[in-house]
């Protein structure tokens, strides 16, 4: 006659529940003790929010973190590439050595000097087709080195412009024919 099965050290269910229950508690404790840890991963929802509206509080926070944290920069770049409205590749050098216009079928980006404010330049993005989506983020990607990102204001008429100091690294990248750009 076999001994009736009783719960104990041979019971897989009890062991699995003990393991799960202990792990669950440890995770909860870890989370509460690690609440103040810096440089935690940025929630994916924040990246999406940043792409949708880089001028929102979350968007600005992600953009600031992207400047100082390579992991945040890389993640934002990945997502921006995935949902880019326009990829503007490297181009042939301009005859005067400095590029002022780049364009695809859908968008044109150009630079214009600001006449009434010394040392400033306008970065302008225009929609060329009849699509409805306008980019909210422009990313300059150098041949070597770190990308530079700029949030774009919301547009209602198919065009946006940013006023930037003439020594802004974003403008340097724009003028460099070896760099490429993303509009997301």
């Amino acid at each position, binding site marked *: 006659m076999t001994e009736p099965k009783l719960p104990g*050290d041979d019971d897989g269910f009890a062991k699995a*529940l003990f393991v799960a229950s202990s792990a669950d508690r*440890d995770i909860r404790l870890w*989370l509460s003790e690690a*609440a103040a840890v810096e440089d*935690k991963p940025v929630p994916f929802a924040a990246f999406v929010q940043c792409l949708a509206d880089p001028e929102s509080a979350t968007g600005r926070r992600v953009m600031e973190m992207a400047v100082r944290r390579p992991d945040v920069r890389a993640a934002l770049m*990945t997502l921006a590439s995935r949902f880019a409205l326009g990829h503007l590749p490297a181009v042939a050098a301009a005859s005067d050595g400095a590029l002022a216009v780049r364009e695809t079928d859908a968008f044109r980006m150009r630079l214009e000097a600001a006449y009434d404010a010394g040392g400033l330049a306008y970065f302008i993005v225009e929609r060329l087709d009849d699509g409805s989506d306008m980019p909210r983020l422009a990313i300059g990607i150098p041949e070597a080195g770190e990308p530079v990102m700029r949030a774009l204001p919301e547009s209602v008429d198919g065009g946006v412009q940013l006023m930037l100091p003439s020594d802004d690294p974003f403008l340097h990248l724009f003028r460099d024919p070896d760099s490429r750009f993303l509009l997301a």
Partner: protein
Amino acid sequence: MPILDFGGSASGLRTEISNELASALSAVLDASGDDGGRYDTRTRRSLVQTIAARAYGKPLLELAYLIAAADQLSGRHGYVGFFWGVRAATSGAYRAAAFAAAGRSAAPREIEAGADELIISYPGPVFRVSYGRMPFLAALLDFCVTALGFSEMDDEISAFLSGPKDREDMQSFANGLSRRLYDFLKDHLPSQQYERKFNAMCSFIADRTDRRVSADAIDDRTVLAFWEECCSDRRAGSDFKGFRTVAINFLHLRLALKTAADRLAIDAAAPIGSSRDAGEVDPEEICGALEVVEGRRSVLAELALPPADRLKAINKRESARLELVMEAGDAAAVLPLTILRAECFGAHQARIVQAVRKRKATEPHGAVEALIDQKPVEDYGAATDDFQELTVQIRKVRLALMFILFRNARPEAFEIGFDLFPEVARALRNRINEPEIDFADNVVPLRPGGAIGRLLQGAVEGDSETMPEAGLFKASRLAFAKVNRRGFEEERVCELEIMEAATACEPLLRVCGEELRAFLAALERHFNLIPAEQVFEEDCRRFHTALAALYRETA
């Protein structure tokens, strides 16, 4: 792998959970939504339980269907737009998103937005995903993306989306994702340590009782004896150093054994044999059991989260005092001495551990020696008194909550009143014109309008000398005036968020009070047999021996 070692700390945490896993979970759970967290408390808790129990198999199949449907529904932004296009991941938000997308002229024929669920008619059986399930599935996807990387996940999802979508394809994608999660958790949430603990404790109990291990075999003497043995042969150096940790491990073990026994009893009663005999354990079943036991354990966490946290019903010190009692659940009444020991001697051990750490840095070892020779700062009498005071405080706060609810004409006010003053319920029974059949001795049906409306009005406006409901209100007003904590301010009583907080706090505090009373009653029974001072003195001797064995060796 980094190991957090809090062996003798207040939390009793010694775990091999990796920073990477904890950070990924933390990022998902801390994500913000509209005016609060992106995920609600229940979703957050379910995600942690699912990861802890590794019960993601079936949810990943649901996720596969939902990703495929979402990608078809959401146009250019695809599944990302559907899942993360909503700021707060609620069933209502996903329902609205599904309706908006399904109503477009280009909406796919295979997907229908029903009233309560998305109905997905790919080749094979129709699959349904309820809107209520979507926040959890979104959190699970969020976790996968954060832990495994968006780029890798997106490549895999894109390949899946470009292929056929019959049941096998869905299952195949879910299996692939399941394997990736398994590999990730194998490294970042290893289970060997927990299994080792389970085996060590069960072996000890089996040796001690000379029979198969059961929940009933775990008592206060067993827990202390196990820890003493670990200290004396220095096995504690690995898994069982802190008494508080050991106490928590035994509470979990007892619960696991009890749940397993209940499950076997149900199986035995079933007319047809169960497939469980095959030895396979269904993670979903583990997760379900975990959800049941977690209900009470999570009370303190829920008090600290919105909406309850708008009222400071429990302060930090009280929460720390309650932690072990709530962790124990019904075992608090079975292992009351273990809890008391963990409170008094656990804190004492934490001070010794702290001194050991300092000694390693700079200080002479005399401080550790002196601490080992001392008694705990708090003895059993003092700790019991403190727990008693806590029950009084909880009662006072519940009365204050009753005041807030009365002022907002909420019938829940009477639920508190009848619980704290059962005689009032009996007195009011005759005043309410409701079918008697619904009445128990201390229960009054709280249906809105009619009688309850009159009672609420009478409570606030009536004469407390002649009307029992007005007496309740008066008692609540007096208590409210004595609670000087955040949110309990007269001018804020009628704010919506304060009323919501009071409604959320009340059932949580009620549970705290119940657990505490059961624990104190068990302690009282114990100390009626052997006085608390006598137990404490004996324990001081035993803990001194064990702590000396643990820490003097390294002094």
